Each structure stands twice: as C-alpha cells, then as structure tokens.
C-alpha cells in the first residue's frame, strides 16, 4: 500500500513478533452487494465512486494494510443463504479484531438483519467480545428524515434481538455511511481508533497542542487513505472533518506543481511540507507534515500569519511526540 519501504519492513518485523491473536484487524462483512468492496476501493485504492458501479462479486478474501499495521479484510459475501460457515473465521478473529458489518439501506433490511444475526452467533461463539460496527450504507439516496427513521428502526430491531439472545448491547455501534460523500472516511477512521495503539495518548497530545497554540481543532491524518488517526477531545463537527479531507486533496494536487523539483541530491522526496491557508472571516488552516504519510491539520479561528513561527515550533514538538507514541521510525529526518 505504502511506498515507504523502510518503514514497512520495520513494521513487519515488529508485527511478526506479535502473536496472530492480538494483531489489530478489521473484517468487512455483510450481504452480497452491500458495498464492502466499494468502500475499501474508494478508501485504499482511491478509486472513483462511479467505478464501483460495475463491480463483480468478490470471490477471494482481499487484504489491505493501514496505519499502525492494522489489517483490513474484505470477506466475500457469498449469498444470503450461505453465510460465513465455510470461511475459517478462527484465522481472523482475535482479541484485537473488530467487525464492520455493512447493511445496504436501499435493499431488503429484513434479509440483511438475518444475515447479521447468524454472523453474530458464529462470531460470538468464537470470540464473545468482538465489536460490531454497523454501517448503515448507501444513505446517499435518502432524505435526512428517512435516514434518521431507518437508523432508529434498525437500531431498535438489532438491540431487541441482542437482548433476546443475551448479547451485550454495548458491543455494537452504528454509522450512517455512503461512498458518495465523506461520511465513509469518518466512519472508517472511528473504527480504526478502536485499534490504533495508544490512541488516548495521541488525543491528549493533540488536545494540549490545541490549548497551547489556540487551535480550534487538530487532526492527525493519514494522507494516503484520508483517514484520521486521532483528533483532540474538543467537540467534533462532521462538516469540518469533510473540509479537512478536501484540504488533504488540495495539498496532494498542489504538490504536483513543484514535485518535478522535489528530489534532493540523494534522490529522496522532501517531506517537510508546511502550509497555511487563509480563509475569509479570519479563519485559517495550518498543515504540518509529520512524516511521509502523516499530516497534522489544524483549524484556527484567527489570522495565523503573525505567530506562524511559534505555531510551527509547537507543531514540530508535537510531531516528535506523536512519532514517539506511534513508534513509526522517523523517515523524514534523513533529508
């Protein structure tokens, strides 16, 4: 996935020493054509949404790797009748495995729920504390009102079923998603936070960064996938998250403007990008590249040009501590 060869190798060495049982994993499950492969292709392969329209059924298990060495698996949804009985789920379920269960809200909900229930039975029998993140997917075609209705209705039905079966309700969480807007990035980020090592420490670092530098909000983004690894503990607004996703896109595109010069003498790409974006109404965005794949994106309700050097100084320190916590080797000090 990542071009960062040295980092990848180092991480792999790390993860070999960890028992398969505790490896962080996300399994995508759900009925056929619910949108599992589409979600992963849009996020991890940067495919255009429209390209997913003609996707064929997935027949083999597909694996992606994201930050923190989290493995993501696309499990083929064979048919409504035959669920996951024949896949050896033991291979995938461990202490640090979470499920993303995708339900197509424009399809037959009853059928999807049966599929969910039998998957739950199977999985809880192997690993009773597995968390289910339920994506109520393809909400793009629905009105806001209908979205809320469907959300409530499905939650209610799933909770009653779980009560009846004696399952712990707190194991499920719901997200309204669509690949046609940024909601899918937010949902996947949230799921990953359950697995990112030391995520609360990262949050604390970002929160204190916000206090010290007078920021409204600070996110640590993975540039490749547009997912965020952590954010501060201040209130979260989806619209600002979407805006940050757009900002990452802008950075990527603008970099091509000077990328032809971007090699230093030893042929390496510089990765110390610092950017400021001034918006009207005294709003500013400050971005600071932590290493080749990670970027801090901060929103400031002020004109930052006057104390930019202080902000940069703080960002540098913050990025050092983030790197320490994440234990990603620092590949960006070499240039």
């Amino acid at each position: 996935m990542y071009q960062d060869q040295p980092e990848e190798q180092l991480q792999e060495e790390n993860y070999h020493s960890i028992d398969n049982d505790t490896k962080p994993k996300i399994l995508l499950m759900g009925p056929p054509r619910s949108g599992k492969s589409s979600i992963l292709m849009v996020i991890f392969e940067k495919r255009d949404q429209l390209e997913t329209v003609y996707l064929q059924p997935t027949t083999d298990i597909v694996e992606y790797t994201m930050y923190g060495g989290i493995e993501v698996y696309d499990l083929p949804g064979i048919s409504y009748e035959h669920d996951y009985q024949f896949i050896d789920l033991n291979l995938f379920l461990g202490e640090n495995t979470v499920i993303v269960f995708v339900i197509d809200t424009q399809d037959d909900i009853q059928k999807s729920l049966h599929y969910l229930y039998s998957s739950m039975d199977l999985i809880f029998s192997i690993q009773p504390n597995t968390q289910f993140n339920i994506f109520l997917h393809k909400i793009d075609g629905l009105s806001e009102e209908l979205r809320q209705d469907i959300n409530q209705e499905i939650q209610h039905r799933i909770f009653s079923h779980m009560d009846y079966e004696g399952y712990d309700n707190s194991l499920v969480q719901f997200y309204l998603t669509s690949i046609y807007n940024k909601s899918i990035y937010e949902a996947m980020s949230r799921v990953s936070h359950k697995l990112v090592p030391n995520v609360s420490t990262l949050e604390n670092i970002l929160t204190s960064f916000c206090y010290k530098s007078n920021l409204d909000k600070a996110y640590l983004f993975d540039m490749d996938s547009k997912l965020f690894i952590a954010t501060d503990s201040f209130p979260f607004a989806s619209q600002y998250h979407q805006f940050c996703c757009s900002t990452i896109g802008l950075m990527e595109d603008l970099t091509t403007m000077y990328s032809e010069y971007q090699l230093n003498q030893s042929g390496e790409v510089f990765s110390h990008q610092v950017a400021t974006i001034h918006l009207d109404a005294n709003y500013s965005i400050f971005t600071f590249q932590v290493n080749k794949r990670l970027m801090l994106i901060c929103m400031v309700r002020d004109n930052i040009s006057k104390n930019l050097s202080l902000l940069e100084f703080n960002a540098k320190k913050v990025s050092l501590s983030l790197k320490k916590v994440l234990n990603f080797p620092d590949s960006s000090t070499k240039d």
Partner: protein
Amino acid sequence: MKKKLLLMGQSGAGKTSMRAIIFSNYGAAETRRLGATMEIEHSSIPFIGDLHLNIWDCGGQRRFMNNYITDQKEHLFKDAEVLIYVFDVETRDQAAEFKYYEDCVKLLSQFSPTAKVFCLIHKIDLIKQDSRKTSSVPNVLANYKKTLGPLSQHFTPVFYTTSIWSYTLYQAWSDIAYKLIPNITMIENQLKQFRQLCGASRVVMFEKSTFLVVSHTQEHGKPNPEDDVFVRISETVKTYRQACSKIRAPLVAINIRNGPFSMFLEPFTETTYVLVVMNDPDVEAAVVKLNISSARIHFVNLADIQHT
C-alpha cells in the same frame, strides 16, 4: 469591450453544463440537475480588463436549431467573435450533428468571416478504452478532425477533447479565453519580467472568478514538467473553493513550503489571482509577498483598468 461567443451543439451535448461549471461554480455532479435550454440563454461575464464575455448558450433541440439557421440567422451569427461547437461523443445521430455544424459554419462565414471556431469533442470520459485501442481518445479526435475539416469553410477550427469530469474542460476554456484578451502580449511580457525580478521558477496568473489561466511563465532549463500541470490547478482550486463555501469561509490565499520550495497563491488585482513558485531555500515568505504587492500596483493597470 464585449465579445460575442456562440455556444452551439445538439441538445444534451453538455453546453449548459460547461457554462455552469466554468462560470457559475457548479460541481460536475450538480450538472445532472440542469434542464434543456429553451431558445437562447444570454450571459455577460466580466473577464479581465474591460473584456466582457457575452455568451449565447443556444438550446440545441431540433426546433430551435432550425430557427437559428433560418429566421434568426442574421441576429445570431452577426458580430460573433467565437463559435464554440460542442460534439457529444455519444450522440445518436452523428450525421445530423455534422449537417448542423456545416450549416452554422456557413452562416458564420457569411456574417462573421473573421470569427474563430473551436470544436469541443465532449464527454470523453465515456470513451471506453478497449484492448485494441480502436476507440482511444486520440483516435476519436482524429476521426472528428477528418470529417469536420472539409465542412469548415475557410475557418481552421481548433479542436479540444473535453469532459466535465476532468481538468480538460479548463484547458479548453483557458485557451479560448486567452485568445480573446486584447492586451495579452503586454500582460505576458510583464509577467515574465515579474518572474525574473522575484527569482521565481514559475508564475501563473488566473482570472479570479473562473480560475481560468490567463498567462503563465516559467524558468527555462528546468526539468520539463507536464505542460498541463498548471491547468490542473484551476480545477483543484475551484473544487477546494466549493469545500470552503460549505463551511462558509471563502478561500483567500494559500502558502506551501517544502524543503527549498515554496508556493504562494495570492489575490492579485481586482480580477486576478497569482501563483508564484520559488525554488530557493533562503527566500523569506515576507519578501515574496512584498514582491507580489509591488507588482500588484503595476498589474492593476493591465488587468483591471478600463481601456477603451
């Protein structure tokens, strides 16, 4: 100075979509909402200097088309500066499309013999690449050129392949607008001087509201980047401006630094933006901004003042 642009082509070819994206900040997906244009929609768009683009978006349904080449011909084709003819690569009746084009060009040569003709081969995103490459974009273009050339009277049409889903649309329209700016040579010379003065490796000037490229200049002897790189910036910035408007905070300026490189996108004159790319680790951002400010005063005369 008003310049009349005729925007013609069959119904559904994508004329109004282009206009909406370039001049009214629509996103590509939003154009699905557009209905067919009834008769002719006029819009007058202030461009740089005292240039106004007077766009005649001619609804392409058959009954309107027939009027254009009969009763309305003089009214429509008189005093036209530019004819932009949009061809839908997925048209169902290509023979009819070519016939209309021929009729229009004939009338144009009669009423506005000095006009310029642009042929936009549009919706190229729909061209499926097959393994034998028979229907690749260059092939499609070659076929259009072969057929349309002989139908074009004394005109030498300029061809573009475009799609609302890529920067190609900005490329074509930047080019068209460029050819209409009266004092463009002066602007270009001044921009080159400005680049040399501030030691920039590249300077690009954009019209503020459309973000079409007005002029660009770059240092010689540098590794040759893809030529269309700055045309992509138009689309990029415009898309980002839409994201900004969603949080109700309009975009003002962008500054990026990475290693020895820095890049400044700043409001320039009343009607333009400027992009400056530096390749010098020792240069201070404040100095570049100062240079831009000093140049601004100078360029206001070129790009804003009404000279009649």
